[in-house]
């Protein structure tokens, strides 16, 4: 350890703070990446992994804190400065231009590939790098990226990041690089990462598969709630101690769980196991089912499939069987130009109509009843929806779903950006409605919310890997299921 301070860090982020509104995404993070080391970065949803990655690649300026490259402080750090210092990033979501060929995508990533003959040069650079990392890849560099499979796109993206054109590549950030690669390709990639690190390069490696992190990293940084909680050599961890490190420091109060006897009952909603793997999904009357796991591992798809399987057809009866509460209010939640009342009653217009005409008194009654029941803070439900705070808008969306006669409600992380007071109110309403026999399917990225559920399905790589009931619904179990290597 004594030799390390002598080497200059490739990049050093000191005391970085970033907040989005009231949410502190980074709360004083200090991170030093030395040449020739692979740093594993782990943490649950919202721990701040993506935010620190964005700070390092220059896409996001920290509101406080300093960044230094190779010992030089960089007061004006941005994407261009990051790239000039040899920082490259492979993002979790695929970020190639699907309409361009592999060669052209290489050109987009490398500014200096221009002038006569750039196509030949680009083809050679990307082809050589693909051959080096993934021997026998079978990718044609002149092919359009849109025609490639997801795994092939991921391979191209990784090869582009590692390929060197003008500036030397010093640090490559890999954010879930193996998520769409099969085991062979993942092994090839991890092998290349090790050889890259041994020749003096640095890698920040983010993965939900702890086995990969442990086998590939020299050092592991664990983040939680926007802070670095642990930073130790990889050899001091095993899978269990890593999961423990990601868990909460303070023990949350666990509510009393009710385990319903479901054997013999007919499920209200069910779905066979996804892609023929993992566990099937079932939801019974009166249950609150949680969908847990890292974000983007198939939870939203499951909700959407459950919803579309029961609505959206011209031939079905008009009575709704399921209601949906969207997570992204602005994108697919509120009708921004409408009043609170219209936003509330839109889901159940058939129930409020007589011979095709909406009955205004009935609509007003529903609005008044729900305004009192869930305490929407407004003088008049005729006010525009945007006059409400975000939390109250979300309450209206809850009321929209609950005002329908639908016996099942699907919730796609609906509490994002909602203050704690409103959350508590909504939790109480959910519990009361469940006691009346409604079924709730709740995808949440927040551990506290998942722990409120009666039964939890944990997703990993698009399939359900674990079902937790009653007292088994603990942070430790959920973390273990969402981070353990996916069932092959």
């Amino acid at each position, binding site marked *: 350890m004594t030799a390390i301070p002598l080497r200059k860090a490739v990049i050093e982020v000191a005391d970085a703070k970033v907040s989005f509104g009231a949410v502190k995404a980074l709360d004083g993070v200090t991170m030093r990446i030395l040449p020739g080391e692979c740093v594993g970065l782990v943490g649950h949803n919202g721990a701040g992994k993506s935010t620190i990655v964005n700070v390092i690649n220059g896409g996001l300026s920290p509101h406080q804190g300093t960044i230094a490259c190779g010992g030089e402080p960089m007061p004006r750090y941005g*994407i261009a400065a990051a790239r000039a210092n040899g920082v490259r990033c492979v993002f979790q979501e695929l970020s190639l231009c699907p309409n361009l060929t592999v060669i052209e995508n290489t050109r987009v990533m490398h500014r200096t590939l221009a002038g006569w003959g750039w196509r030949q040069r680009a083809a050679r650079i990307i082809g050589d790098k693909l051959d080096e990392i993934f021997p026998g890849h079978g990718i044609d560099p002149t092919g359009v990226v849109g025609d490639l499979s997801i795994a092939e796109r991921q391979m191209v993206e990784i090869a582009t990041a590692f390929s060197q054109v003008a500036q030397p590549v010093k640090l490559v950030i890999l954010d879930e690089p193996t998520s769409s690669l099969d085991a062979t390709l993942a092994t090839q990639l991890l092998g290349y990462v090790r050889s890259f690190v041994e020749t003096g390069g640095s890698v920040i490696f983010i993965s939900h598969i702890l086995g990969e992190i442990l086998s590939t990293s020299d050092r592991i940084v664990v983040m939680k709630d926007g802070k670095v909680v642990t930073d130790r050599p990889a050899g001091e961890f095993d899978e269990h101690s890593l999961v423990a490190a990601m868990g909460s420091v303070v023990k949350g109060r666990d509510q009393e769980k009710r385990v319903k006897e479901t054997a013999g009952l007919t499920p209200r909603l069910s779905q066979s196991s996804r892609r023929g793997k993992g566990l099937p999904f079932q939801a019974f009357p009166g249950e609150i089912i949680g969908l847990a796991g890292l974000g983007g591992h198939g939870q939203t798809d499951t909700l959407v499939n459950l919803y579309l399987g029961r609505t959206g057809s011209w031939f079905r009866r008009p009575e709704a069987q399921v209601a949906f509460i969207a997570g992204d209010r602005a994108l697919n939640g509120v009708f921004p130009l409408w009043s609170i009342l219209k936003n509330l009653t839109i889901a159940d217009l058939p129930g409020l109509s007589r011979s095709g005409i909406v009955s205004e008194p009935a609509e007003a009654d529903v609005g008044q009843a729900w305004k009192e029941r869930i305490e929407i803070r407004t003088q008049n439900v005729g006010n525009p929806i945007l006059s409400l705070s975000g939390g109250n808008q979300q309450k209206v969306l809850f009321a929209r779903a609950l005002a329908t006669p639908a016996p099942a409600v699907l919730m796609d992380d609906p509490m994002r950006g909602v203050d704690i007071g409103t959350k508590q109110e909504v939790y109480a309403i959910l519990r009361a409605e469940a006691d009346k026999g409604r079924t709730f399917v709740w995808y949440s990225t927040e551990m506290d919310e998942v722990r409120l559920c009666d039964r939890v399905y944990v997703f990993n790589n698009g399939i359900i890997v674990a079902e937790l009931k009653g007292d088994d619904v603990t942070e430790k179990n959920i973390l273990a299921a969402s981070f353990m290597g996916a069932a092959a």
Partner: protein
Amino acid sequence: MKRALPSDSIRLLIPALSLTILLIAVFYLQPRAMSYVGLNLLFNLAVPIALATIAQMLIMTVNDLDLSMGTFVSFVACVAATFLQATPVIGVLILVAAIATYAALGVLIHVRTLPSIVVTLGMSFVWGGLAVLILPAPGGHAPEWARAVMISRPPLVPMAIIACVVIAMVAHFVIMRSSIGVILRGVGGNARSVERAGWSILGARAATYALAAFFAILAGISLVGLTTSADANIALRYTLLSIAGVILGGGEFTGGRVSPIGAVIGALTLTLAGSFLSFLRISPDWQIGAQGAILIVVLGLRLLLNRLENREKRS
């Protein structure tokens, strides 16, 4: 690894095929069109349309749409028939200012995240108004050089065909082959990743709009070269013709999927469709509707092909 034709070639297949079929039909109805003069007459009005289509295609490359194309080409035609002919220096200055305006529009649309349709629809009234101010009544004279180029008679191949091939080649080189064109199409495909690679999306948009204005100006000048005089409403049809030409040629409204060669073929097809209907002696009252029907048939074919392609990809 089995790989059929690249999807770009498949994309070009339908427009090329529909142009060939139309051409055969026209020759069948009117064998005299199969001559130097006949071909030139059939296609010379396609030259300005092809240029306007390339301009529209550039705007569509960055996922925008220009609804002022027709009025802008009319405006340029009016400038060409007056200032550019009488006082070339002022004429050139006006056209340079028009290019700068387009670049500024690109900046405005990007910075304020305005819908391009709204901005260009508004600008169409500005261009239209300016055109009326310049030329309140039809008139003016085409600049001699523009006229000379448009009526020139090169040996063997008519001017209209040569012009269309040159337009297609130049546009193909700029958009599809050059390293800058890659960035422009990248903005249409995935602006975020282009930005993450350190490029200025703002600059790319401004450049695209300026380049589009340049092609639209060529369209206006070549149009005046053909008609010898101008009118403030001379090219109003070009807005929809240019959009239809891009789509017909295998381009798409979003995603940066465009094809300059296809766009020129699309413009030729649209021009030819008009002549075809005249040869069929369909009354002018029905011609627009019949032109629409041809468009629907071709686009329907493409939809079918896309679906087949997707099914193949999935299996």
